[in-house]
């Protein structure tokens, strides 16, 4: 599938309750190197209840300057969380459904320098 189709899709809990929309997809490069780089596997989805508009990079990588902008953009994305692939029950064209007992994780990216 095309990832762009998934972004912005509404996310529901197992009972059909609305949780937000897919704001991003997180991948991890932990497999064996294929040729040049490992294949990125889907770790989980970032779900945002308020806005899936661009974050301008502010919400996840610990940017705090300029302070006021950082505050405003963080506020716009308050309540966003990450669900792991294991907690996703079904992906449809108009909805993503999570498994019962899914866990909300922090969306923060560890501040590790890019390899």
């Amino acid at each position, binding site marked *: 599938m095309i990832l762009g189709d998934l972004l912005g899709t509404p996310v529901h809990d197992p009972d059909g309750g609305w949780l937000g929309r897919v704001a991003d997809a997180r991948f991890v490069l932990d497999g064996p190197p294929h040729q040049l780089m490992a294949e990125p596997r889907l770790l989980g989805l970032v779900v945002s209840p308020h806005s899936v508009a661009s974050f301008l*990079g502010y919400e996840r990588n610990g940017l705090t300057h300029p302070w*006021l902008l950082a505050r405003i953009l963080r506020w716009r994305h308050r309540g966003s969380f990450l669900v792991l692939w294991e907690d996703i029950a079904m992906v449809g064209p108009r909805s993503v459904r999570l498994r019962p007992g899914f866990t909300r994780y922090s969306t923060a990216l560890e501040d590790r320098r890019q390899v």
Partner: protein
Amino acid sequence: MKRLLGVALGVLTAIGGFVDIGDLVTNAVVGSRFGLSMVWVVAVGVVGICLFANMSGRVAAASGRATFEVIRERLGARAGLANLSASFLINLMTVTAEIGGVALALQLASSVYYLLWIPVAALAVWLVIWRVRFTIMENVAGLLGLTLIVFAVALFLLKPDWGALAGQLAPSVPEQETVWTYSYYAIALFGAAMTPYEVFFFSSGAVEEGWTVKDLLQERINVLVGFPLGGLLSVAIAACAAVVLLPAGISVTSLSQVILPVAEGAGKLGLAFVLVGIVAATFGAALETTLSSGYTLAQFFGWSWGKFRRPAEAARFHVAMIVCLLIGMAVLATGVDPVQVTEYSVVFSAIALPLTYLPVLIVANDPQYMHEHVNGRVVNVLGMVYLVIILVASLAAIPLMIVTGAGS
């Protein structure tokens, strides 16, 4: 020694390259109608462009990324495209105004009707972009543009009453104008000083010339010395108009009025200098805006770009510029007044400014791009102050344009 020469050259071209048709026309209009009561706007604009150009130059040097690549990465495809459309159209308008400016200046020199000069000017712009090396192009246009200093010389030769002139410096609305027209022209002047294309050009030029963080100091000197001196040149244009045209009840509507104070003060020699200066400044700006239209498109879509490549290695970039020049020519061929196009282009520049300013401000804070060269605290405080100023100017521009009938 060589380094010192390089710095001097950079500063001189920054001065000569600061003024374009927008600055020429807007400063003369404002000087003839409002005297020197808007010099503070030029000051605000110059500090703004220093801040903004410095930041985008630093982003380009530290990360190798030009402004529009950054805009798309940060805003995403959708908002990025909206931004591209607005920025590109305004840039195209500026291309049109600059080519018209070259043609008008050539008419003043030759009395051959300006419409006949337009194809010549556009062809010359294309030939330079096609063939001439980036640094030569930039330096020659910038150095020739320095002849505009004749505005300052003429001001001295006019022997104005300096005390009365200084008295005009306080921000105040002349009685024959309203606070609305005053605000409208304040925004136009701000837009003329801070035109977004200068930033596209500046950051892409840094990539063209292969700047690295080692060149940051020189870049900073170029900007921090060159632009304020260029701003002084703008003020001299306004002051000339305020001394000669304002008392005669003339409000500037054509380029032929802009040069009268220089002829008054410095005679035919002054006239020769000012005509060379205007042709060089508008021609240089035509090059910069044409390149900027190629840069914005190529950077958004990820095409290969740059004058440092053979044209065949940046094919779409070159085709885009040719198309832009053709469109500019077609618009001018309708007989639309280039001075009017200029007046609108500076106001629309002010409107579009937040679109380019915000992403640059954000990326300049992102260590992923900038490593240790992120903005310092002072720059960020200033940056936020200017974000507010730019937003206010942008939001106020269209209502003011409607209320004042575009400043008439």
